[in-house]
């Protein structure tokens, strides 16, 4: 991975900040308006797009910004999904209380905490492994996860190979919305909060420190950046994002099983990262759109070889937009 090819983060300027806020708001309002335009099926697809965008953003924090290649983020996505599914299908029993049905929204913070802790722990071996070796180690995590989920030890909770089925939440308080409409709005709201948080985090001091660690660790250390804290912290935050995305995805799909999280999922997130734009916050949105919708378009073009079409589109995008879609848009804007 040539580090010189990764784009730098634009320095925050007051004018630029004010300018960026407006398009973001417009996009959010437009996305929310889709609730009342699209059919339930398309809202369901858009919900998945938003969930994947959050997951790609998570991967971007660790791989795009702090330069630690992870090919195993599907594992965090899976863990987030399972935390939600397990909590939603098993009433919480505490000795001094009646069993409580855990509502869907309450599972998100839990899966954030669980994935954050695991991500933080994974950050430690990552300190000693760089570049390709870290990529392989995280890849191993992605390979192992589906089999661990099938294991008998966790079988009582995970449902083994059978997986777990969860019910789609109804809109609260008699809102005149369908379940798909409500879930889309809910997912969009969570995404908006997470994207704003990520932007604030990455455009400021911490973002610059992360990029410094990525581009020149020695110089970063000389400047007083705690490299170990930055790297493990990036893994933790990244895992939180991807885990929450997994939770939202699971609620939309209403089903989790070990086969839902194959190795390919991690690769897809990586594809979303690179296609969307490495080290850009808005690139994650394009990444999510690409990961969810392009396989469908590929299948529409050819039933015989959807994989080949997908590969062709991927090569074309990389050739035409070497810095991803977000990178290409930035270049267009600069030229204009």
């Amino acid at each position, binding site marked *: 991975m040539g580090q010189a090819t990764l784009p730098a983060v634009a320095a925050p300027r007051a004018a630029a900040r004010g300018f960026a806020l407006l398009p973001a708001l417009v996009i959010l309002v437009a996305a929310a308006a889709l609730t009342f335009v699209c059919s339930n099926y398309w809202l369901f697809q858009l919900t998945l797009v938003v969930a994947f965008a959050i997951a790609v953003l998570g991967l971007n924090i660790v791989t795009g910004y702090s330069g630690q290649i992870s090919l195993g983020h599907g594992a965090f996505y899976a863990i987030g999904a399972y935390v939600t599914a397990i909590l939603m299908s098993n009433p919480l029993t505490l000795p001094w209380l009646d069993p409580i049905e855990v509502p869907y929204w309450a599972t998100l913070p839990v899966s954030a905490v669980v994935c954050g802790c695991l991500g933080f722990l994974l950050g430690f071996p990552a300190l000693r492994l760089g570049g390709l070796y870290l990529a392989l180690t995280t890849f191993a995590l992605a390979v192992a996860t589906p089999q661990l989920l099938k294991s008998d030890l966790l079988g009582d909770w995970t449902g083994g190979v*059978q997986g777990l089925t969860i*019910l789609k939440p109804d809109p609260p308080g008699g809102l005149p919305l369908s379940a798909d409409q409500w879930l889309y709005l809910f997912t969009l709201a969570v995404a908006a909060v997470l994207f704003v948080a990520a932007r604030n985090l990455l455009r400021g001091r911490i973002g610059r420190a992360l990029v410094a660690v990525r581009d020149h660790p020695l110089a970063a250390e000389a400047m007083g950046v705690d490299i170990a804290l930055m790297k493990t912290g990036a893994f933790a935050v990244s895992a939180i994002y991807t885990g929450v995305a997994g939770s939202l995805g699971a609620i939309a799909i209403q089903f989790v099983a070990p086969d839902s999280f194959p190795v390919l999922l991690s690769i897809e997130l990586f594809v979303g990262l690179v296609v969307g734009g490495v080290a850009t916050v808005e690139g994650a949105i394009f990444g999510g759109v690409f990961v969810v919708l392009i396989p469908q378009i590929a299948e529409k073009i050819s039933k015989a070889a959807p994989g080949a079409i997908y590969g062709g589109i991927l090569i074309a995008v990389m050739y035409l937009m070497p810095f991803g879609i977000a990178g290409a848009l930035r270049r267009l804007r600069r030229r204009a």
Partner: protein
Amino acid sequence: MMQRRPLLKGLLAGATVAIAGRRAGAQTPGVTATEIKIGCTTPLSGPASAYGVIAKTIAAYFNMLNDQGGIAGHKINFIYYDDGYSPPRTVEQTRKLVEEDGVDFLFQNLGTPCNTAIRPYCNQHKIPQLFVSTGADKWGDYKHFPYTVGFNPSYRTEAEIYAKYILKQKPDAKVALIYQNDDFGKDYLNGLKQGFGDKFDKMVVKTATYEVTDPTIDSQIVSLQGAGADTLVTAAVPKFAAQAIRKVADLGWKPLHIMTNVSVSVGAVLKPAGLDNSIGLITAGYVKDPTDKKWDDDPGMKEWRAFSAKYMPGADLADGNITYGYGAAFVMTDVLRQCGTDFSRENVLKQALSIKDLEVPVFYPGIKVATSETNHQPIQELQLTRFNGHNFEPFGEVIRGSEASF
């Protein structure tokens, strides 16, 4: 900002009208005066894509049917999408089939985890999920999932049939069982328990398990021989099945060896294990082996060969999935004929659950497909076959398993 609310309200009202309008207009989704839309998900990509040929065969079968005039003036429009054997993709594609394409019902969706993922959706929205292409036992659960109907005989049924055969032919057998330590393997243990009944403890001298991650199962085979067994039932996936056949031969052990029909591919299992070592291996099946010379003059297989030549040019006719797909499409066609002119979801489901002893041209003679309101497992009979060094030869009578209890 002030103007947004009226706009939102307007959009909301418009959407409500649109949804209400769509509901009122569509009496029977997927059915017009000239067409019936049927949906299916299947792996066209990914590790399980070899099964994709089943959906392609079904599409070709319906093409043939349409060329012959269709069903009661309706052409069949069979839409199948790739899910890569990934349950979330199955959910996506199924919702697309139902909500965007507006199919009448689903047919032959493939894979146990994939069908599990869409089962609540189908039953909640009352969409028949017919003749799913998997061998799990749970599709028989008519009480909780009345809109889901199985197709393949379950592993439990298969094991039960082995037990019945052993009880009849070798009542004082000393049986050993090796099975994979997961749902697939445990179905065989349960089937043997059901088949042997209270004789299970007397008949079965030893059971052993392996994990799918184990390198070999040699030590398990040695221990089963050591227990004095003279009959071996192997419920293993192809790699371990080949190891079992080879180890049994290496030990000079000559048990009556019964093998799950998941692992009887001549190319993938028996050749690596040694064809000579595999002679005498017994399994049970229901689809005629397209490579068996015995069926050269069989009218059913002749029909199938004529179909393949015309509608599936270039296909590998040794692939048993093509015969299977043909059989499934044949059953579906029969159900649609029984529907008369009422192709509503309720009537299609009703007819799919009223199949009476249907014989399928590509299934072994004597195997009858039957369903009822309380029997959602159409195939419960199997024909035993024995390997003669080239292919599996049917012998004895068709044996029937019992219905699962739910």
